[in-house]
């Protein structure tokens, strides 16, 4: 899969009706040296990442660091307040007592990790309210699985080759989809 610097506008869309067929098709197509633009599915297909050549996401690593930020923030703010800015005598107890701070520190760790991760997830996946996505085929959120191939700079021989290989993999339908500009309204 490639992340093209220039946005592609013309695509071939191959549709499949079962996840196992999709996985076999990806293997077959990649073995023929054809580059797959993307795969679309109505639910996460297990085992698709290595077959498609996707690198593992680093989202969970980001989550760890967001959590660490939460822990540090909680401990330093509580320390500043309880020890320095507002030391208050409660039955002669120490101004700074770690065990009492564990609950709040834990909650803030979880809060920072979750909010940070979800924010990163939305940014990286390009998701926001009102975003108008490119829909290759409406049925990919219902019952079909799709493989897309960018063909803007492909010769007609290349295109024919993609179509014939798609045919070999038992694709249900092979369609061509062209987007007029990047802000295609919902179709």
């Amino acid at each position, binding site marked *: 899969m490639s992340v093209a610097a220039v946005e592609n506008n013309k695509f071939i869309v191959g549709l499949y009706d079962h996840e196992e067929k999709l996985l076999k098709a990806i293997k077959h197509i990649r073995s023929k040296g054809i580059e797959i633009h993307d795969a679309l599915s109505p639910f996460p297909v297990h085992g698709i990442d290595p077959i498609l050549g996707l690198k593992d996401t680093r989202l*969970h690593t980001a989550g760890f660091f967001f959590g660490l930020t939460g822990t540090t923030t909680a401990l330093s703010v509580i320390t500043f307040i309880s020890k320095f800015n507002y030391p208050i005598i409660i039955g002669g107890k120490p101004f700074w007592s770690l065990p009492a701070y564990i609950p709040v520190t834990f909650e803030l760790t979880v809060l920072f990790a979750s909010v940070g991760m979800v924010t990163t997830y939305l940014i990286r996946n390009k998701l926001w309210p009102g975003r108008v996505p490119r829909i290759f085929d409406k049925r990919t959120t219902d019952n079909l699985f799709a493989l897309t191939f960018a063909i803007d700079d492909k010769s007609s021989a290349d295109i024919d080759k993609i179509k014939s290989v798609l045919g070999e993999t038992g694709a249900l339908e092979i369609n061509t989809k062209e987007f007029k500009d990047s802000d295609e309204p919902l179709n």
Partner: protein
Amino acid sequence: MSTYESPIREALIKGEDTNYSKITDDIVRNTEGTPPMAWMIAFALASATALFGVFCLFYTVWKGIGVWGLNKTVDWAWDITNFVWWIGIGHAGTLISAVLLLFRQKWRTGINRAAEAMTIFAVVCAGLFPVFHMGRVWMAFFIFPYPNTRGPLWVNFNSPLLWDVFAISTYFTVSLLFWYSGLMPDFATIRDRAKTARRKMIYNILSFGWVGTAKQWQRFESLSLVLAGLSTPLVLSVHTIVSFDFATSVVPGWHTTIFPPYFVAGAIFSGFAMVQTLMLITRKIFNLQNYITTAHLESMNKVIVLTGSIVGVAYITELVIAWYSGYLYEQYAFYNRALGPYKWAYISMMTCNVISPQVFWFKKIRRSVFYSFLLSIFVNIGMWFERFVIIVTSLHRDFLPSSWNYFTPTWVDAGLYVGTIGIFFTLFLLFARTFPVIAIAEVKSIFSSSAETAKSKMSDPQDFSDVHSHSHDGGHGAHAAVHHDKNFNEQ
């Protein structure tokens, strides 16, 4: 690609002719067309009750907390009882979505969406009580530590009540994020089959423009897994901290180290009962018996009988430890709890929480819709009494016998409680009508292994002869995947 599942395991998606589009149809149908009559009647009732609750909130703010039945001795009663009850109910949602995800329990997919929605609405209802108990609700933000002009004046980080502020607000935020991140793909499904432009626009906004590329799904799964991992200790911490509100005090009957696990078990117990109540209503109104099956009910009832028994052990432990402590005041607190003026509440609690769920040891009853519903109501009642018993019986006879008192609720107390039930059901019914009430994508993801149609093919003995001959050219490492391929290659 573990699409093979033992035929002994019961199918989680019923129906002879199910496939991916039928799943979409069955679940999305509830958000289209006119709502069923049963929904409209339920909504009218719920919203009327909610309005009365809102009126009681206004009345409380207008007149002051004095309109509640609190007195000098029992200065904490229905408000905190309701708070703990609602928070506890909320816990089942997180447990189902997070803990069962970590344990890879496939039956989770049929009910997790609604259970998570229930969590959020329950936390909303719970939050109302402490906020309105403050009296001057417009100053509620004082509970957060923020730099202010009142000199160096900060909240007390040693107080469990402050821990509660952090726990509940974190819990609400994380539950909402978890729930919504799962909803986006399903909103996209509704968008892509919408007929009108307005509907398309609304559901596109709700879906955040989801399309379902391989990379999106990869990040989706990573996010779900980490959020589940974070929510699991979170949910335990929240009710632990709620129990600290009592356990760190010096009131006999509250000052016990057993409270954290006992509260957590009680929370799961009451929450599963509420999920059971809601799912039985939802599957009936929206005809979802194929997705919320008797297998789901049975699994839920198993959790209910387990947690109910844990709660029962906790009750008995408290009594035994009080006796064993040899400490007169502790002994009296528990004697008074079980046999004092609130004996009726203690008996109700014991009957509903400990004795009645034991019938779930019988498979017939576990799988019966009628008994599941009836007992889920019993458990909800019982768990409300548990909190009432803990809170009021410990307070009403305090250290000075001259100030011993009996708590009687006023109509405002009752109105607020019933009102939050109305708010809860109003929100839930709106959710069930406009949102996909079952996680569409997640149900589809277990289809190949757990649907009745897929399983019937698996158990076909003829398939076995093909497994070996096929596995050489199949190239798939997993036996199971090859086994499955055969069925689809025939088409």
